[in-house]
């Protein structure tokens, strides 16, 4: 086992990894940017190294500085968390070249899966279903032929594309000509490239992914699925396992497909194979593979009963993963809600500010992974993920009730969050029925904040007569002005409550 690990990340995931290290008896090194001088992940570590300015490329994306921090502190391995450099093959190479261990898959696996088109082609080759499609189409006849082979409805989209630009859903052949023309025009405008591709359109698509896990001794298993169809702006906000959509038979087939995908690139450590599942037909299609720990890994931990992060570290240190596929099973039902500093009433725009009040829920079966505390500033530099609430209960209904109770106990003042939005989402019949597809939030869930309750006005009024009893920002004790922002270790930065 390693004696010291550097965690090249911030926020909740950095603390999550450090907790695993602490239980394994491994010392931890935090890295941080200037904005994060007083962040919890810095306080939580045994040592902390300042990387540089707040912009990620000066700090959390700076490969050279991170490796130098590891060398300086004598760390033997680096855990990249998710985001930042976690799927950067050059980083994995650089870590290895520096004589350190990268806690994750090989650089080559990252590279192969990072080329999304190449990965899709490779998986098709390996016999894994991919979304049927045709490229390099020229004439109208080409399009018609391809469309007939794929079947309607289908999607015409820019080959160079992304973000919905130059994208058309075509329901029947009579609409095809006009759609191709329109898409071509839009593609040319948006990307300067009029090439199009045609793909099968899955109208009621579920996003279902399989956790896979491999060691360096040719053991490779899947740890079942995560249903991640509740998305906004193509980002997951609620994840759960088991998926309410899958049958045992389909679960087994998709799990085997996920293992094939991982095997095709000789995968080791934790990874996730993402599929699209057509709700109507239950056909599934390989989407991509994420070669890292996933934000939503805790629901798998709860249902399968394994500590994924500890196992990441253990197999990176050469240990054997001791469970065969038949040893593994799901128990109960787990749900994760991502608490974002964002305003669901304004297009989910990130909300920045200082955490003026912050209370996390507690209770049996409730886990909160978070990286912030009262007084912390949420800036525009980083992802607006504030915390993850994970519940585990006997069945889906009990898990939803537990999550409702947990969200109802979450208090965040100072930044707007999606907590109220999540409560209403979980109470929706479509969610209760497991009938949420990936476009559901945008197309079917029209949400507006509830008007304030009578008691809210009462409470606000009472606060006027008990000012000193309520949180009053102007008297927050740890606000220090005039401190030297550049040197977090300066004693001048230390708290001075007496300024109050």
């Amino acid at each position, binding site marked *: 086992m390693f004696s010291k690990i550097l965690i090249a990340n911030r926020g909740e995931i950095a603390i999550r990894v450090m907790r695993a290290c602490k239980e394994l008896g491994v010392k931890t090194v935090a890295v941080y940017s200037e904005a994060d001088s007083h962040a919890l992940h810095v306080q939580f570590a045994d040592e902390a190294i300042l990387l540089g300015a707040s912009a990620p490329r000066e700090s959390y994306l700076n490969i050279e500085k991170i490796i130098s921090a590891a060398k300086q502190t004598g760390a033997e391995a680096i855990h990249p968390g998710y985001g930042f450099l976690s799927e950067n093959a050059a980083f994995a190479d650089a870590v290895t070249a520096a004589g350190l261990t990268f806690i994750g898959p090989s650089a080559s696996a990252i590279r192969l899966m990072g080329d999304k088109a190449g990965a899709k082609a490779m998986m098709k080759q390996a016999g894994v279903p991919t979304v049927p499609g045709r490229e390099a189409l020229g004439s109208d006849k080409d399009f018609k032929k391809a469309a007939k082979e794929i079947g309607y409805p289908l999607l015409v989209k820019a080959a160079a594309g992304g973000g919905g630009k130059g994208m058309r859903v075509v329901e029947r052949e009579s609409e095809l000509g006009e759609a191709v023309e329109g898409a071509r025009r839009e593609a040319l405008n948006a990307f300067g490239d009029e090439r199009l591709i045609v793909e099968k359109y899955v109208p009621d698509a579920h996003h279902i992914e399989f956790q896979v896990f491999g060691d360096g001794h040719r053991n490779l298993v899947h740890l079942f699925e995560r249903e991640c169809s509740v998305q906004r702006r193509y980002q997951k906000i609620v994840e759960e396992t088991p998926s309410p959509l899958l049958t045992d038979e389909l679960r087994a087939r998709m799990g085997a497909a996920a293992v094939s995908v991982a095997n095709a690139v000789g995968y080791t450590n934790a990874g996730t194979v993402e599929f699209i599942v057509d709700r109507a037909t239950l056909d599934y299609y390989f989407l991509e593979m994420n070669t890292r720990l996933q934000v939503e890994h805790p629901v798998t931990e709860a249902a399968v009963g394994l500590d994924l992060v500890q196992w990441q570290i253990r197999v990176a240190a050469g240990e054997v993963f001791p469970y065969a596929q038949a040893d593994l099973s799901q128990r109960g039902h787990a749900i994760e809600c991502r608490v974002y500093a964002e305003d669901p009433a304004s297009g989910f725009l990130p909300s920045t500010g200082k955490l*003026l*009040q912050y*209370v996390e829920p507690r209770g049996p079966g409730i886990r909160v992974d978070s990286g912030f505390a009262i007084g912390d500033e949420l800036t525009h530099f980083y992802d607006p993920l504030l915390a993850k609430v994970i519940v585990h209960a006997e069945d889906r209904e009990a898990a939803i009730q537990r999550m409702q109770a947990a*969200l*109802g*106990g*979450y*208090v*965040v*003042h*100072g930044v*707007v*969050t999606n*907590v*109220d939005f999540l*409560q209403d989402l979980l109470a929706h019949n479509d969610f209760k029925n497991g009938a949420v597809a990936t476009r559901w939030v945008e197309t079917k869930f029209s949400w507006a*904040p*509830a*008007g*304030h*309750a*009578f*008691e*809210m*006005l*009462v*409470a*606000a*009024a*009472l*606060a*006027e*007569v*008990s*000012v*000193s*009893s*309520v*949180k*009053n*920002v102007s008297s927050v004790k740890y606000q220090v002005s005039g401190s030297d922002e550049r040197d977090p270790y300066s004693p001048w930065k230390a708290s001075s409550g007496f300024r109050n």
Partner: protein
Amino acid sequence: MKLVFNDNTSAHSVDLSASASGKSYRVRIADRTTELSLLNAENGRLEMLVDGRHVSAYVTVDGEKRWVTVNGRTAVLTKASGVTHKTAASDHPGQLTAPMPGQVRAVNVSVGDMVTKGQTLLVVEAMKMEIRVQAPRDGVVKRLFVKEGQPVEREQVLIEIVETSER
């Protein structure tokens, strides 16, 4: 004590006063009048009895904003700035009055002092609560009608602030 809070759509008037018994508050919002007790208040959390029901609320004062969480729901209200504790009965817009019966706990200014909008001028204690009487605008203290320790009646004039030019 009359307060106005704005949410995204409209303004809400809240009238808060001590009840006759002196042991609780009476609050009127639109047509609804309610008796309530404040059981406890610490660290931004208020425990109240509203019509006999137990209500927990978190309130954070953030400038004019009020972050309020009740029953797991959070709203951001804005306290309307016009409503300092001036009495409707007073013809002098600069005369500030006691919002409820109590005792003057602190007088932070003297006649002739320049004050800035929002500055706490006096503190009145009522029902073991502290009410900070704040300057409604920049100005000068023209007259002080009370001194520390003095009991005051509801709407009793406490202090008069005038614009600098009026001095």
